[in-house]
């Protein structure tokens, strides 16, 4: 145990030191090659200054650009190419993988489930987040309530799976139900069920977990946006005799519309990539497969099929592309306004 801790600490220091050393020494080296004072030669010094300021941004950006290129940009191209090749990535098969995908029942099931997730989870998180933000802003212990609702953000999806598996726990025969859901159902005279195996509805039991995790995120951001609403607009509405319902839908919601869109988008991206929950709860059994897990399965199933998993990865990529474009446009507009 002790030796393992020491190895771990050594590895950590080494990793961070290599990174820090790069920035320190590359900049020192640049100053050394193009010194600021070249024996009183003002012209040379000026040239050196210009050269340094030409090179230094790339020293600063170097590691970031290298990592982005290798880990995010190259893979997009490589995955695209691989999608036209066979299981081991060596034999060109044309569009066969795409044809397979659209004829595969499991793939279609995954698409269907993914659409289900996309329709329910971002909407539910945003809606609950907004409602809870409005309500907690109005009570004195709102911050405590917010902390509790925000807390699941810190819990891993795997941890959440243990938590919720325990809630959905089913015990057969006459055993006492120790799962909260079944105990409640029994209390009201219902029959206990094995919740995560009920086709179609089990998808919703998994979604509940993500909603439980992500609502706090939506709440915090929307709460801040609500505080930014000018006081006068609400005062005016109150004077005009609007009720709470009208103020919420006609004054508050339109004013935080941009933030709602941001929250919705962020959660949408998360849903597309969701993997852990399905893996730990059902591993795609009982018709709960989603694209991310199908892709992971094909990556390793029977020695792996890089062609088919590449096709599935590309489908996920295509799904996020509109969001990507929207993001870039918004960022550009923001920068011009500055």
């Amino acid at each position, binding site marked *: 145990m002790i030796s393992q801790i020491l190895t771990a600490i050594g590895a950590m220091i080494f990793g961070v030191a290599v990174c820090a050393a790069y920035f320190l020494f590359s900049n020192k080296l640049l100053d050394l090659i193009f010194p600021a004072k070249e024996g009183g030669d003002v012209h040379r010094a000026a040239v050196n200054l210009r050269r340094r300021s030409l090179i230094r*941004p790339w020293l600063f950006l170097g590691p*970031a650009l290298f990592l982005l290129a290798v880990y995010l940009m190259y893979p997009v191209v490589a995955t695209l190419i691989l999608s036209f090749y066979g299981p081991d990535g060596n034999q060109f098969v044309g569009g066969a993988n795409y044809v397979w995908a659209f004829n595969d029942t499991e793939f279609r099931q995954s698409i269907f489930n993914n659409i289900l997730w996309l329709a329910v989870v971002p909407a539910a998180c945003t809606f609950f987040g907004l409602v809870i933000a409005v309500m907690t802003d109005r009570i004195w212990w709102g911050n405590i309530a917010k902390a509790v609702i925000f807390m699941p953000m810190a819990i891993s999806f*795997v*941890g959440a799976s243990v938590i919720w598996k*325990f809630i959905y726990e089913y015990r057969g025969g006459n055993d006492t139900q120790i799962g909260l859901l079944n105990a409640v159902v029994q209390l009201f005279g219902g029959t206990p069920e094995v919740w995560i195996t009920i086709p179609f509805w089990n998808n919703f039991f998994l979604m509940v977990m993500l909603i439980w995790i992500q609502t706090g995120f939506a709440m915090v951001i929307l709460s801040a946006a609500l505080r930014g609403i000018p006081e006068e607009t609400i005062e005016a509405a109150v004077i005009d005799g609007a009720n709470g319902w009208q103020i919420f839908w006609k004054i508050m919601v339109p004013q935080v519309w941009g933030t709602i869109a941001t929250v919705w988008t962020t959660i949408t*991206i998360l849903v597309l990539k969701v993997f852990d929950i399905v893996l730990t709860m059902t591993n795609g059994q009982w018709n709960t497969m989603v694209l991310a897990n199908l892709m992971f399965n094909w990556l390793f199933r029977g020695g792996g099929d890089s062609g088919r998993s590449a096709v599935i990865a590309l489908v996920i990529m295509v799904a996020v592309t509109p969001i990507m474009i929207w993001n870039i446009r918004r960022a550009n507009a923001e920068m011009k306004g500055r």
Partner: protein
Amino acid sequence: MIGNLGRIGPARLFVHFAVVLIVLVWLLPTLGIFITALRDKDQIVVSGWWTAFAGSTRTTAVRLAGNDKATQDGPNYVITGNVSGDGNGGNGKIESFGLRVQDPAAFKAGAPADIGNGETLTVNADGSYRYQKNAAFDADTRGKRIYLTISAPPQFTLQNYHTVLTGEGIGQSFINSLTVTIPATIIPILIAAFAAYALAWMDFPGRALLIALVVGLIVVPLQMSLIPLLRIYNEIGQVFGVPSKTYPGIWMAHTAFGLPLAIYLLRNYIAGLPKEIIESARVDGASDFDIFVKIILPLSFPALASFAIFQFLWVWNDLLIAMVFLGTDKDHLVLTAALNALLGSRGGNWEILTASAFVTILIPLLVFFGLQRYLVRGLLAGSVKGG
């Protein structure tokens, strides 16, 4: 502003009630495993965790000592002994007892019960009993079978934690997780901060394009990267004769996947710093490196801290990247992967699962509640701006 919101809408009482309800729904799932992890493993399976504080009652069957143990006491014959520790766990209080399984709680504990045939039986709460007959007992050497209703007080133990930390590899995984998480939090911040400064304050051709690129890459799904990167890692491993699944490998992967968001958030923050400070430092002859280290880094502390918390939570809680780039052998298993394995192998052992889950949740929760202020600030810096 908030005070004004209070004046509108339906009755305040309804809002309080609704929020209490929501808080309960959000809290109960986690509370369930925290409490379960502290319970005795035999109790977990016989009663729901919500009964843990109420104590539990259960019925069990025991035998009294055989009739040959009877002693004479004046005109009576008496058998005495103690039934606790006799298959009833040794803890808990005996509430009542009975002679037939159909009526296991016929008599109250502590008082002599007339059970007919001239016999009286007294069973005390602590398990001691006195079985008395006004004549000799028959020769049967098998003791009398009686049923006990035992109520156990709320009982909590740290045994489950001891088990998972020593026996289930959770302790080792805890260190593995730290080994992955700490460098994978510090390195991306360092790299992203330098890049963010360059994109915010240094002039060079192609800057706008690079910023757009970074924003675009925020959305690229991780799944895209898995296949090509696995191939690169395997090839590098083969060429240099090193294993393809290493700690530096996963540090770089986490760093790269966290970078776009980090650069974007930090650039926004650093670009918002006052222009005068940076320009006056330049006039004084400070190089960009000096400006960055001595001015930008200290000023950006809130943004750096908020991203650090994010990255820490994200890396600590990650399962996919760890499974793909670090593998699942014992020396490299991170907490989430270990917990996932336990879910498969120890499906019904809730004392193991809940205690392990609590160990995995503990550090992020501490970080989360300790630094929540920074976390929220960072969230807002990145998200509300466009709204």
